């Protein structure tokens, strides 16, 4: 089963991050590096990325067949997606235990979502 682990960022978490010592911050990065390495070694990792600041994103809308972009309301949104892991593992419990190793999980900013599979149709 595939699971998407979403990592959010909000003003409180950014404030906490800014207030960390260099050493603490290095510890945070280390937690990410180790998680990435472990997921790759276990064959569970599919992809993981950190996202650029939302102010650099574009909202896309198609009007009369033409794609238009705008900065959109993203910059003002308080909580935004900061990064994600797409993993494949045996159960949601396992995915949750992996997600719990993300430093942001200490602030309730990590979410695990099952991915819909293209197989698994029942016979009836």
């Amino acid at each position, binding site marked *: *089963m595939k699971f998407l682990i979403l990592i959010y960022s909000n003003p409180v978490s950014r404030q906490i991050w800014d207030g960390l010592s260099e050493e603490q911050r290095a510890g945070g990065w280390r937690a990410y590096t180790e998680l990435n390495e472990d997921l*790759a*070694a*276990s*064959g*569970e*990792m*599919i*992809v993981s990325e950190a996202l650029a600041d939302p102010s650099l994103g574009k909202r896309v809308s198609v009007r009369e067949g033409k794609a238009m972009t705008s900065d959109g309301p993203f910059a003002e949104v308080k909580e935004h997606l900061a990064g994600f892991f797409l993993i*494949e593992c*045996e159960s949601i419990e396992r995915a949750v235990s992996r997600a719990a190793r993300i430093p942001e999980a200490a602030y309730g900013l990590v979410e695990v979502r*099952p991915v*819909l*599979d*293209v*197989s*698994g*149709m*029942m*016979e*009836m």
Partner: protein
Amino acid sequence: MTGAAEAENLIRELAPQVLGILVRRHGGFEACEDAVQEALLAAALQWPAEGVPANPKGWLITVASRRRIELSRNETARRRREQAAAALAPPDPEPAPATDDTLTLFLLCCHPSLTPVSQVALTLRAVGGLSTVEIARAFLVPEATVAQRISRAKQRIKASGAEFQMPPQAELPQRMDALLHALYLIFNEGYTASSGSALHRSGLVAEAIRLTRQLRRALPEDGEVAGLLALMLLTDARRPARTRADGTLVPLAEQDRGRWDARAIAEGTALITATLATAPIGPYQLQAAIAAVHDEAACYADTDWRQILGLYDLLHLAAPGPMVTLNRIVATAMVRGPRTGLRQLAVAEADPALAGHHRVDAVRAHLLEMAGDRPAAHAHYRLAARRTLSLPEQRYLEARAARLAPPVTCTDPEPDPGRSQQRS
């Protein structure tokens, strides 16, 4: 093109035999498997262009052995001396029968220390002769993920102390269960996938059937191996009628049975009939028998539900499980009416394995629809659609719900032109 396809079939057929011989000769399953994989790749490049060698098996053994020795040169000096000595030893004049090796290899790849996902990946590569890239494509994951799963699986086998030899007789039934389960997983990955989004997966069905045939050659007397092969054939026979042109799935009740594969049905039916008469009965045989009863009916209305219910009663005794319970309830409803089915469903739901399961909602919706309670059926189809983890199933359940949706009474101030409404 045919030459290339023939060469590939031959290479894949020889893969487990060559690996078996290599492990016997050199030891070290992990390195031998890598060496064989490289030899298969070399053959896949060379044979279609230059022609298949006179002794294809010998060719693969020679190339793989050479590679195996090269690989071991990278190891420690002690290992190097060992392998050099092995390389000097004359090749076995009469290699052990290939079928024995194939079964040993199957069982090693489905070693209980591995997760089902790893068992599947390793079996497809080591026994099936598929490349890491092909496996990755079939399972819609990156190549690095599959490569890592295979290398980790091999490390685990090594760490568990498992050897390339038949497990003791006492362990065999359990080991066979794991092996048959892995083969069935491969089949289901391919069979239950919707086309279009997962075209590569249909190859998995053919591969699962090919591997099960190979296993049956090694164990012709095993009733459950025959049962699994019959189940695959009888299920896959419906594939041409199972998908619409747009990729959506057609339920059994609505399939155009004229498009079913009559040859596969004949083979599967003959196989399961002969097996049930001779072998001790088992869950795969019962499931195959159920599939055969479905396939025998000229139309859905002709289905012999009494016989299917009887088979589910047996399956419920032989291998009880939440999905068997649900399917048995559907069969009960077909024989004794939807209200009986709904009553049984209310009882079955108490089982923690079924509580909150989307298929309970799906079955309830189906039975409510049969009973003529459209609003309740609609609500439960919607609930099931929200809870499923399968995309094609979600689309199917949403379509069922849409058919039963109450007519829209509110007046939309600005109707959405993109959304057309279809009701029956």
